[in-house]
């Protein structure tokens, strides 16, 4: 039994079968990559995991509990954090505040009327956030307006916001898209470091095969909404079905 069990999930958008009978099992403390050509349904699958979309049929179990029908914030509180394909950050807030908010969410739960305290007196939370920013090499940018960051920095910030929650399962939707090579390598190192430091399961969608092969222990190939193969990185490289799905897409 994996920490995440997806069984027979279907999702239609009008006439388009975006997900067709998807089965996926992600084992605890592994990095599981999902690859596949554009429009394969990878983001749609993640949307079904975090409560953004409701599948038409099937079941999604996380840590022994069903996530279907739960609200996004409830799913997050269960221990699933997600990095989006286009960075979702609090653009009007400072970088530091962006990271403090998930710290509050982790400590205080989905809602708390903490109107009688001041942000300035929350030293623990601030400390956690600053520490996290150091880990992603963004400490010098902490007082910047998050909206004014570069695209790569926005991604790193979003990743910091997810990591600081210490989720059990981290979902990453193309975390290095739009990053410079150096930042991509930093991100790989960061994720490896986190992985080494504590128990965390990661599910990563990526087009950059360098990232995939540096991190993944299992790889699922998705094409036209259906998983084709699930294999270890060594076995996937020369897999004929993968070549077929990716023909002309990337060097596998």
């Amino acid at each position, binding site marked *: 039994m994996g920490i995440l069990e997806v069984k027979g999930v279907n999702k239609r958008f009008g006439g388009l079968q975006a997900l067709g009978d998807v089965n996926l099992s992600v084992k605890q403390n592994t990095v599981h990559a999902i690859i596949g050509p554009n429009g394969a349904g990878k983001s749609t699958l993640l949307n079904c995991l975090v409560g953004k979309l409701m599948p038409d049929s099937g079941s999604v179990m996380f840590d022994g509990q069903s996530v279907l029908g739960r609200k996004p914030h409830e799913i997050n509180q269960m221990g699933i954090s997600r990095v989006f394909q286009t960075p979702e*950050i609090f653009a009007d807030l400072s970088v530091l505040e962006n990271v403090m908010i*998930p710290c509050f969410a*982790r400590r205080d739960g*989905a*809602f708390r009327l903490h*109107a009688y305290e*001041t942000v300035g*007196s929350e030293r623990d939370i601030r400390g956690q956030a600053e520490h996290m920013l150091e880990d992603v090499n963004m400490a010098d940018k902490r007082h910047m307006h998050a909206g004014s960051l570069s695209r790569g920095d926005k991604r790193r910030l979003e990743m910091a916001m997810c990591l600081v929650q210490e989720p059990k399962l981290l979902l990453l939707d193309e975390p290095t898209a739009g990053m410079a090579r150096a930042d991509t390598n930093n991100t790989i190192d960061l994720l490896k470091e986190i992985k080494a430091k504590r128990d965390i399961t990661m599910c990563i969608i990526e087009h950059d095969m360098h990232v995939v092969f540096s991190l993944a222990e299992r790889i699922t190939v998705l094409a036209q909404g259906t998983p084709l193969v699930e294999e270890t990185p060594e076995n996937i490289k020369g897999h004929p079905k993968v070549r077929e799905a990716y023909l002309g897409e990337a060097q596998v």
Partner: protein
Amino acid sequence: MLGLERRDLTILIAVAVITLFAPIILNPFPTGSALAQFNAGYPDLMQRFVIFGIFAIGFNILFGLTGYLSFGHAAFLGIGSYSAVWMFKLLSMNVIPAILLSIVMAGLFALVIGFVSLRRSGIYFSILTLAFAQMSYNLAYSVLTPVTNGETGLQITLSDPRILDGESSGLPVTSLFGAEMRDTTTLFVGPWSWDFSVGYYFCAALMLVAFYISVRIFRSPFGMMLRAVKSNQQRMNYTGLNSRPYTLAAFVISGMYAGLAGGLLAAMDPLAGADRMQWTASGEVVLMTILGGAGTLIGPVLGAGFIKYFENIFSKINDGILHQWFAFMPDGLENFVVAVIHPFIGKGWHLTLGIMFMLVVIFLPGGLVEGASRVGRVFRRRDRKADHVESDAARQRAAAE
């Protein structure tokens, strides 16, 4: 001090000093002089400044922080007034229980209206709040006549029970443990005269408390969450935070502020009418907040003062006064100038206000507060330039020697 950082404390102290000396500051022109009509330091108007200041401060907690634009906050103002007048009728002319009930009732109504309206966001939220407010207005105007006294409005009468107060000979007046709200001491200094009214200082004290609470909310983790709602509600939800109770809490708090303002209006003048709930009143607080600067601390207070000043001062200027001012001109020119200015004064004050509002929104999206900070920046830059020039000159001198 008071859990505030230095900058916020400075602002609070500045606001406190200004409200304390407002009766003097707002009466800069000697009584009887030609400009005396620009004086705003009379109790009735000063009370309005601070009461609508409270209304706008509360509105800003919702709109300025979360970005949810309510078009129905006047409903809570009206509910506050009705509650207060009922307290004056049934219990006592003391303003304390009246105001407490105003806040509680407005808070309860806000809880219900907010619970329903906050299921939608953006324009749909605004329309829902507007619909609720108009419903309240119509109910107060007709259906609920036994409670609201319909068209006439709710007033105190001699035959009211007033359980705590006992018999009184004439129509009683509102008071704070014996200090009558309408009591005013006038101080004459040379040609000036200044009115110090109990009612004004009572309202001003409450406004300072209201302002202090709003500053604390702005600087609290709760306030940060409200800004997060405005910035990216989706991210907030995927971060494990439930945005709904946050917005509802902000809605209820701002409703309670409106209730306090409504209660104070009734405490200054114990009557309540349905007009107070009309959509124009809801729109006014939106204008105040945006004009002053939504999301800033003192913007709403500035905006409220600005609009109330215009409403009360500009509307009083008439053609007769204009002719006096321009009497020095040749007759034809005088008539022409008066005719040009005429649409903007008296009943036309709305036009002036509208134009100013448009100018502010277009050129100063951050409101009057942004205007003030821009002016401040220009001065600071000029100082720095002056410093540069001086230091350059000094360096040149040193080099020459």
